[in-house]
């Protein structure tokens, strides 16, 4: 047996008012309408599963998602399950594989939250003991109005202005005092967003 890292990504099938509000705040209230075109949101669970193979680990999580209401409700969610061999937060190009050339992903997670423990106890309540770790991230996919390049010096400051809350007009997606955030660039580079 070994711990396999899985990445469960859940998105809404119904209109996402949260993403819509965030986009409105960024474009209109924060004045970044020249920079940001669109915004979508996914929930991402990083799950460590004790299993003999990846396929077994995947089967455990798939069963949890399909037969319980812990992660998703088919009325409003769709989900995908992928392998994440590298501990999350490390360099992992697959994180950005779905990004278009003009998109960046901003990942946000609570520094300290009961949510992971809570879902683990919920899973244990169901008699499933193979899931050993759980952490929730929100993955915002930000579509820019242009295609950024790795050489651009202003790119990271712009992403920080979108992502890290520092004032009434600056930063929304993460509060740096209670949350951590990372950015994934279209070319696969990933880095922490807090300066």
């Amino acid at each position, binding site marked *: 047996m070994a711990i396999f890292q899985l990445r469960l990504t859940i998105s809404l099938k119904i209109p996402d*008012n*949260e993403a819509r*509000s*965030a986009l409105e*705040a960024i474009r209109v*209230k*924060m004045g970044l309408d020249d920079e940001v075109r669109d915004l979508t949101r996914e929930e991402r669970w990083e799950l460590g599963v004790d299993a003999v193979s990846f396929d077994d680990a995947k089967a455990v999580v798939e069963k949890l998602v399909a037969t319980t209401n812990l992660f998703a409700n088919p009325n409003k969610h769709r989900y995908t399950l992928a392998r994440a061999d590298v501990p999350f937060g490390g360099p992992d190009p697959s994180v950005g594989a779905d990004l278009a050339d003009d998109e960046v992903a901003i990942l946000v997670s*609570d*520094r*300290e*939250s*009961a*949510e992971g*423990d*809570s879902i683990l106890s919920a899973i244990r309540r169901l008699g499933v003991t193979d899931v050993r770790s759980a952490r929730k991230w929100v993955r915002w996919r930000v579509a820019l109005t242009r295609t950024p390049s790795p050489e651009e010096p202003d790119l990271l400051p712009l992403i920080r202005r979108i992502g890290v*809350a*520092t*004032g*009434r*007009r600056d*930063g*929304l*997606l993460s*509060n*740096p*005092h*209670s*949350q951590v955030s990372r950015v994934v660039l279209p070319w696969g580079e990933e880095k922490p967003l*807090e300066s």
Partner: protein
Amino acid sequence: MTKSMPRIAVIRFPGMNCEEETKRAVVDAGLECDVFMWNGPTSELVEYDGYVLPGGFSYQDRVRAGSIAAKDEIVDCLFEEAERGKPVIGICNGAQILLEAGMVPGIERGRVQMGLATNIMPDRDGYYTRWTHLRVANDGTCATRAYERGDVVPIPVAHAEGRFVSAEKGLIETLFANDQVVLTYCGPEAGEAREFPANPNGSTKAIAGISNPEGNVVAMMPHPERAARLYQVPGNLAGPWGARKREARDAEAMFGPGPGLPVMSSLAGFFGAEPREV
């Protein structure tokens, strides 16, 4: 020339749900009060003498409690009015907005220096409601002038994100040194509450409320409007307020002032009127 009675605006952001009882408590403290819509004209908003941001779920807690409202135009106006010295009290979700807007602690003006993180509680998560005891650590702010330093005040909390945190090194110590920690959770006898449930959310140093350096902007998690009259106090609460409720034997006593009313009386006192005897 006689100055007319100070007027307070209770701001209704979409999703707030404590506007009416908050207004009632402000009126009980002897002030005039209106509920003011988030999309109302700022030209009218500036005519008010002070502001209360009530509890609830502004914008459904989208992104993070208080974060969307903090970006609203009306908050720019509140920021400017606060800079002019007008009092602003944020209660629960209102407090979350003030932190997200950088109006408190306000050591660096307008900079987000703290967050209200999800509750950390043993064996449970999510929303938590309970009457807590608070120690008044600073009796000079627009929300605590009618108390005395060291007073133990029971007021209920009801939230899922009420844990004051900061990633800025030394900030918490500075807040204490500056007297910006206004309220801390404590036991019925004033000892600091380090443990759940006396500290109901794992807040750093049991902080329940903070202010800006001037004391005219206060963010507090407990709900004073739910403790404005004695009838609201639970009879099984430890300490003198619970006993008072148990012993109340007529309408006058039941509808007499509660432990949270002085928060609103402090607002009244801020304008030079004598805070009412409580």
